């Protein structure tokens, strides 16, 4: 192969071959491609080796790895990864350096990536634009889902409001039941979405009271057994109001409305379910509802000190309450106390808060 052919070949390959000299400089081997002369015009005439490191911080850095590679007589090639150099005219060139050992010589190759670089860049550009578009779509879905969620919440709020305008329970009580239930659900390892659902669904637990006559609902004294039988119907009325929806939040609300007076030992109502046959959501709400009723006053009873309330509730563990959830309740009792402190009011009726429509927002 004559020298001219070799020069053509080197130009075609767009690769510079250099041998690393003992003084740290590089001696060109074979012909120098034209593009390389833009960066090192002295490359052809220069007798002594080139000090690439002085002109290129990238190569200076790569040479540290290359030295280790040469000393270790590494097999194959050590590649630098793509780097961009700018010629004196401001044009950018993408290159890649490689270190290799050949017949005891330390060889450095610098390859002009040219179209291969442009192709790779185009592929990456497309891939990244796709990722950005996917991220945008996901964000859009989240935004719209949140909007739907707000509408669901508002519908739920209006339903609760309709009940509460007839009941003696307070807005603060409703809010607390939601937050207690959410805290318990989270502590039990529920998914965030479900925990969020129970915060709202729990507030609708007594929605069936809308169907109970005023004389029973508003009675200050003890209910007769007949009246109590009618009162018990609020669970089924609530379930009837909420049933048949394909909205998970309302499905859960139905479970709670129907099941929050069921007891672990089967002595509850309306169906006398036992243990895990009672939906977990209803078992959760039962604990929060009883706790809140005990530690707060009502027009027909004074509030109990928390310690007394806990004694009462402990008697119900395994009878009224699911032991696993009760244990969890005791563990996160400080959270219940914080919720009580933040929403301690008993006087504000929910309907007074109606215009704000923010009842179910977290504190």
């Amino acid at each position: 192969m004559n020298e001219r052919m070799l020069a053509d070949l080197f130009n075609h390959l767009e690769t510079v071959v250099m041998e690393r000299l003992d003084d740290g400089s590089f001696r060109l081997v074979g012909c120098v491609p034209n593009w390389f002369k833009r960066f090192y015009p002295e490359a052809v005439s220069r007798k002594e080796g080139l000090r690439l490191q002085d002109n290129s911080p990238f190569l200076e850095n790569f040479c540290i790895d290359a030295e280790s590679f040469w000393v270790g007589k590494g097999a194959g090639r050590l590649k630098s990864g793509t780097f961009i150099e700018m010629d004196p005219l401001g044009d950018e060139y993408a290159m890649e350096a490689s270190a290799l050992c050949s017949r005891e010589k330390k060889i450095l190759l610098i390859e002009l990536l040219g179209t291969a670089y442009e192709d790779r860049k185009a592929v990456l550009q497309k891939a990244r634009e796709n990722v950005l578009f996917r991220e945008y779509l996901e964000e859009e879905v989240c935004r719209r889902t949140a909007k739907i969620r707000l509408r669901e919440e508002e519908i739920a709020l209006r339903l609760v409001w309709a009940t509460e305008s007839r009941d003696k329970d307070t807005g603060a009580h409703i809010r607390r039941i939601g937050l207690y239930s959410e805290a318990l659900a989270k502590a039990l390892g529920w998914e965030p979405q479900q925990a969020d659902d129970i915060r709202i669904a729990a507030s609708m637990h007594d929605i069936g009271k809308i169907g109970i006559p005023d004389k029973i609902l508003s009675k200050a004294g003890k209910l007769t057994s007949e009246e109590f039988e009618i009162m018990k119907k609020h669970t089924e009325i609530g379930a009837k109001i909420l049933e048949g929806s394909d909205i998970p939040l309302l499905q859960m609300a139905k479970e709670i409305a129907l099941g929050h007076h069921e007891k672990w030992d089967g002595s509850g109502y309306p169906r006398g379910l036992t243990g895990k046959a009672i939906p977990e959501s209803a078992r959760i709400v039962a604990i929060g509802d009883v706790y809140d009723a005990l530690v707060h006053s009502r027009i027909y009873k004074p509030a109990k000190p928390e310690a007394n309330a806990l004694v009462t509730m402990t008697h119900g563990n395994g009878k009224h309450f699911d032991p696993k959830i009760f244990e969890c309740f005791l563990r996160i009792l400080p959270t219940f106390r914080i919720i009580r402190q933040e929403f301690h009011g008993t006087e504000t009726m929910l309907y007074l808060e109606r215009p704000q429509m923010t009842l179910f927002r977290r504190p």
Partner: protein
Amino acid sequence: MIKKKICMLGAFAVGKTSLVKRFVKGIFSDKYLSSVGVKIDKKKVIIEQQEVDLLLWDIHGEDEFQKVQRSYLRGSSGYFLVVDGARRATLNTAFTLQKRTEETIGKVPFVLIFNKWDLKDEWEIDDKTMDDLSKDGLMVVKTSAKSGQGVEEAFLTLTREILEA
């Protein structure tokens, strides 16, 4: 003349190249051009009458297609972690890179840049998150490579920190 190497690190499309272009050349383009590989720019700054030559290593964005090679970080006096305020996930990438950088070159000064301030209305990262990071002792700067807001401040802040380190 003092020379200092600074790396630009972050997820893809957070604006690393745009920040360098804005700082070095004072220009900006709205078109997103994905970076492949490493490009080094130089910029001279004067801090308290001291000239400092900054070598700005604009390293391709980290994603599933390209990883930042540890050897690129060697010799850095400081680095920027660039986050796109409108993409929360880029903050996680920044922290991953910060961890890897610290494992590679030890503790050196860095500035957390929340870029694209001009698109503030679309941001997913709120002021509280940024304030909390500041309270945790991180240097946080909000920038817009588009308008230039905060860009000079970010580079000068990091340079000062490097000189004081």
